[in-house]
């Protein structure tokens, strides 16, 4: 996996301890997997997505990522209703590896409580956090 120096951690996003990023646009949150997680997992070959309209809860699993090595849960960073899922991942799951912050986004959530975002880590805090971690399995 990438070294800390190679990691692409974006300043305009907030992060969970389970390595999801969140991008806010008004009351909508776009959620994806960050560079640390995609690099640690290796090639992503399948993404299990929720349906549009499903309810997700902050900290709860909403789907999974299948890498050649393992299966990993995807956790929502916020509570709310899924208003969009990235359908292109069904055909091209590798976008999670090649473009984790843009084309590889996973879901968009209409937030029930945007204040939940305040509890997430900003990029500096997140970088300090990943420095404390052993590589994820």
């Amino acid at each position: 996996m990438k070294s800390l120096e190679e990691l692409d951690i974006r300043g305009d996003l907030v992060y969970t301890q389970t390595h999801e990023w969140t991008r806010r646009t008004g009351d909508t949150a776009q959620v994806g997997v960050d560079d640390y997680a995609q690099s640690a997992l290796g090639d992503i070959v399948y993404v299990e997505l929720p349906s549009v309209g499903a309810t997700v809860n902050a900290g709860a699993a909403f789907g999974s990522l299948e890498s050649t090595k393992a299966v990993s849960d995807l956790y929502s960073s916020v509570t709310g209703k899924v208003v969009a899922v990235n359908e292109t991942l069904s055909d091209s799951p590798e976008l999670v590896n090649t473009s984790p912050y843009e084309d590889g986004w996973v879901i968009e959530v209409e937030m029930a409580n945007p204040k939940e975002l305040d509890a997430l880590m900003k990029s500096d805090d997140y970088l300090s956090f990943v420095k404390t971690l052993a590589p994820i399995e």
Partner: protein
Amino acid sequence: MLRKTALNAIHIELGGELTDFGGWEMPLWYSTGSVREHLAVIEKSGLFDIGHMDLLRLKGKDTFNLIQLCLTRNISNLKIGACAYSVILNEQGHVVDDTIVYNLGKDEYILIVNAAMGPVVRQHLIQRNTFQNVTVMDESGRFSKIDLQGPASTVIMKKLLERGRGTIEGLRYFQFRGDYADPASETALAGNIPILLSRTGYTGEVGFEIVMPYDKVQDVWNMIIDAGGSDVTPCGLAARDSLRTGAVLPLSHQDIGSWPFINTPWDFALPRGEDGKFTKDFIGSKTYDAPSSLYTYPFCGFDPRKVEVCKASLLLDGASIGTVSTCAIDMAIGRVDGRVYSVASPDRPASFKARGLVCGFVRADRPLKPGQKVTLKDSRRSIEAEIVSDIRPNRTARVKI
């Protein structure tokens, strides 16, 4: 402290994702990624460091007798220059390890065994040896082995052979030439590096295993990379695992191990004659008189989703009937209207896309039939799968070269 092969520095240089494999620090994949590595072996070629495997060399007039006693395979028809897959059982009929046995001639044989198994198998053989004239040497530190696998491998090897180029022509699956320990080896690479060149591998694709003196392995690796150019891709253990699974080959201590070796897809390693009876006695053979209710089958699913081996149950009509020993994704295959095609299938429909299929092996307490639908269930999910007789179609391991 993990042991390192002679190629460890190269693994790091290539961005290898390193892992502990049987006490060795080995690459799971390189920066290329395991999906492209898997596909490279089917479409062009892949190069694997197999330096963690062990090698025993047996010498003496009774070598044949000791091998006949301790290996399941009947080697009485194994010609000089040929090799065979076999398993080694204990008195309970459980697998100690699997091996490829090479007949070098002049009462000399080689056994290539798995990582860390050299001392174990050597001890096993010595303890059971009732013969006078045989020595079992563990040469694991003196040699190293790399595998070049895939359809481009033949052209690459021909370019590199300084001696014995003609030996590749017509070399058949499970034949080999040369001897890594003989300076006058029939097969040698540039700089007079003696090699044992074997048309084997563990990927299901055409290719070679190359055994050479330990201090030459970096040179040989670099030679192959230079000669192969874009036709050769360094590959890690993840691709090796998914390729061997698609080729219906077992992983020792996972798909075969400390339980009876019976009713498996690998029963060809047992010395059965046309009448079904054993053609020789061997350690473990008496256990086959007892009835067994253990059956191993390959399975193939319908998408890439996996379950966790060891923790997953095999369900038939909702009832648990066994376990899952290997669960991998063959990324070169996919289904069209239920039928499995590979990127190498000449008749694959235009709509075919290799999205990958989950596949592996299950152990059941009853016989199952190809085509039978089963469920694999772990704490996360249940997936549907089908018992099959084969997994990845259109493999090249047996093509004429």
